[in-house]
């Protein structure tokens, strides 16, 4: 072991105490995280899927919003690195949700965790919590703000399949307005040199988003033209009843990804979706399960990227 040359990612020092969002991360930082994640992919494909970088550390997954896959992904990532992982699902039935947030944060902080992974329904909630605790905090999704590990895993998936991100045309399609996945992805991919397009009905595009330098399309056909990557977003069922779009049927007609619309993109275009999918609402089964789909690989990369983030933050913890 001692004769082994250290890989460049071993020398990588993450420059922030928390991972609250993609916004504010430099391009080299993102690329180093992706490099580290590549090593974690290799670990995850071994029979012995264990490292010891988080041995003795306590990781708490604090989810104020129900989640199956993200929570499982973070749990697996922590365990593969040797951390003691505790899942806490906090109901949000009470009206004083914010009070619960700070009280819960203070209580958990007193238990001396090393890393807290947080998902909350309100934008900025993770920032607020990070100010109240002494440990490292990872944003696992805050309202319509950010979901940084999703953007990192998407970037990793694209990089592995296309060999690069620079110069690719990425069309993010659907409910951009309510999507933290879209926000983190557009910042991340633009930072890495991709040309990001936002495609959706006008009622589901965030106001003023053109000011951030993204091309917007309300015509999906035009938006998909020459795209290298088509990234679909989940449409929440409660948005389909007339307030934002008239019906599921009409939405699928204009914004659902089927083989016919996908044919407008480049022939080697790849399809992504953060899951869980609404088949027949934003994406057809034919496309979701087709040869151009990366959806299952995204899930695998999710674990690797979360391992990389946990490890990068753990390196900054005291007594390491």
């Amino acid at each position, binding site marked *: 072991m001692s004769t082994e040359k250290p890989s460049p990612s071993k020398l990588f020092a993450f420059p922030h105490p928390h991972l609250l969002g993609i916004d504010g991360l430099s391009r080299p930082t993102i690329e180093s995280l992706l490099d580290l994640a590549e090593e974690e992919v290799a670990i995850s494909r071994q029979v012995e899927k264990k490292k010891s970088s988080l041995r003795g550390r306590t990781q708490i997954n604090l989810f104020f919003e129900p989640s199956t896959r993200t929570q499982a992904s973070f749990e697996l990532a922590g365990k593969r690195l040797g951390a003691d992982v505790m899942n806490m699902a906090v109901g949000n039935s009470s009206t004083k949700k*914010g009070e619960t*947030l700070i009280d819960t944060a203070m209580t958990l902080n007193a238990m001396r965790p090393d890393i807290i992974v947080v998902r909350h329904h*309100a*934008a*900025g909630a993770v920032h607020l919590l990070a100010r109240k605790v002494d440990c490292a905090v990872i944003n696992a999704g805050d*309202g319509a703000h950010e979901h940084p590990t999703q953007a990192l895993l998407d970037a990793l998936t694209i990089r592995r399949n296309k060999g690069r991100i620079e110069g690719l045309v990425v069309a993010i399609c659907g409910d951009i307005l309510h999507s933290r996945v879209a926000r983190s992805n557009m910042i991340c991919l633009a930072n890495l040199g991709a040309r990001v397009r936002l495609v959706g009905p006008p009622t589901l595009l965030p*106001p003023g*988003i053109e000011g*951030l330098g993204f091309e917007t399309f309300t015509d999906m056909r035009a938006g998909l033209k020459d795209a290298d990557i088509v990234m679909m977003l989940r449409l929440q069922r409660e948005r389909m009843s007339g307030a934002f779009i008239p019906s599921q049927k009409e939405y699928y007609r204009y914004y659902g990804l089927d083989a016919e619309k996908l044919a407008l993109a480049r022939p080697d275009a790849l399809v992504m979706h953060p899951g869980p999918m609404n088949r027949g609402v934003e994406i057809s089964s034919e496309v979701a399960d087709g040869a151009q789909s990366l959806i299952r690989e995204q899930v695998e990369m999710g674990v690797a990227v979360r391992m990389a983030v946990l490890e990068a933050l753990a390196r900054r913890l005291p007594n390491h």
Partner: protein
Amino acid sequence: MHDAVSPLLLTNARLIDPASGHEQTGSLLLADGLIQALGPEAGEGAGGATVLDCAGKLVAPGLIDMQAFCGEPGAEYRETLKTASAAAAAGGVTTIICAPNTTPPIDDPAIVDFVLRRARDGASVRVHPAAALTKGLDGREMTEIGLLREAGAVAFSDGPHAITNAQVMRRLMMYARMFDALIMHHVQDPDLVGEGVMNEGEFASRLGLKGVPREAETVMLERDMRLVRLTGARYHAQIVSCADSIAIIRQAKADGLPVTAGTSINHLTLNENDVGAYRTFCRLSPPLRLEDDRMALVEAVADGTVDVIVSDHNPQDVETKRLTFTEAADGAIGLETMLSAGLRLVHAGQVSLARLLDAMSSRPAALLGLAGGRLAVGAPADLAVIDPDEPWVVDRYQLHSRSKNSPFDEARLTGRVTATIVAGRIVYEYR
């Protein structure tokens, strides 16, 4: 406040009367709650009067704040008339128009009477209630505008609620006109506000927060202009926040409509970037807008299109502000920092000192029919002594309000009130 006070002589003062813009150096003699003499010779024959040497500082009419929430009745944990008046006195405000959105609301003459009695017993500055336009602030049935006026209400408003039903607003205007009562309206269409919590646009989209479009304000304001044209009521837009609204007000005034407008000290000196990383003290209604809007407001205050500057004092305790931005309450305290923050515009050469003081005293007095806001013989002896060049740093824990939600916390300000006089009595002295 009304018992006998010995005469007070302010000497070496820079006397400024904002209504006329007239400025002179001299003394000011106060007795029996009124200004008895002013000018270079005012001190002569004032033997026996207590002397306050102003050492060249400014003496201006005490400020009249047309919009401040004072907590009573029902929200005494946020503010009381006593604590609000202490904050007011420290900010040079000698008259507060307290907002009607209390619990219960000020929608009944008995509650006007209650507020006035509570103020008489505990407040160090003058307090006049604004009464509700509709019963229970529900936007449907009009209040007893005549009886409320007789009880002492000086204006009518549903506080932070808009009257969405145009027919209700039309009838309110027709009825209020009979009494020449002033209608003050929160011009925000609640449907367009929706779940919005800050200015709609790039920054809100970046933060993942829902936005309030400018049209929430302009749609309501344009409707109201039509109704004023129809009814002839005296109408005041409580807070305008954006450049488009200024154009509407300017046009209405050019058309001769009896329309006036106000803005808050927050909208004049802060912009949406102050929200930063989800600072809930900058969550306001209407929201802070772009720098371009702020600059347009400053210009409109300077040229008088926007008549009045208010503190929009809205005390919120920790439990309603120490939340995520979406879940936090609207509002910022402002009574104590209004003048100092406003002086930023004077020091920047954007608004004249006389106009700033006019927007905070003389104009409100004229709109509300109050005797203050003037430096003249026979005017009430309500005064602010101001050192316009004294630098200080705001520490919210040092402020007098019961709540500490100041967006100016840690701000460096230049100029502060060094003494405040109400009815000839010193109610605040710095140091």
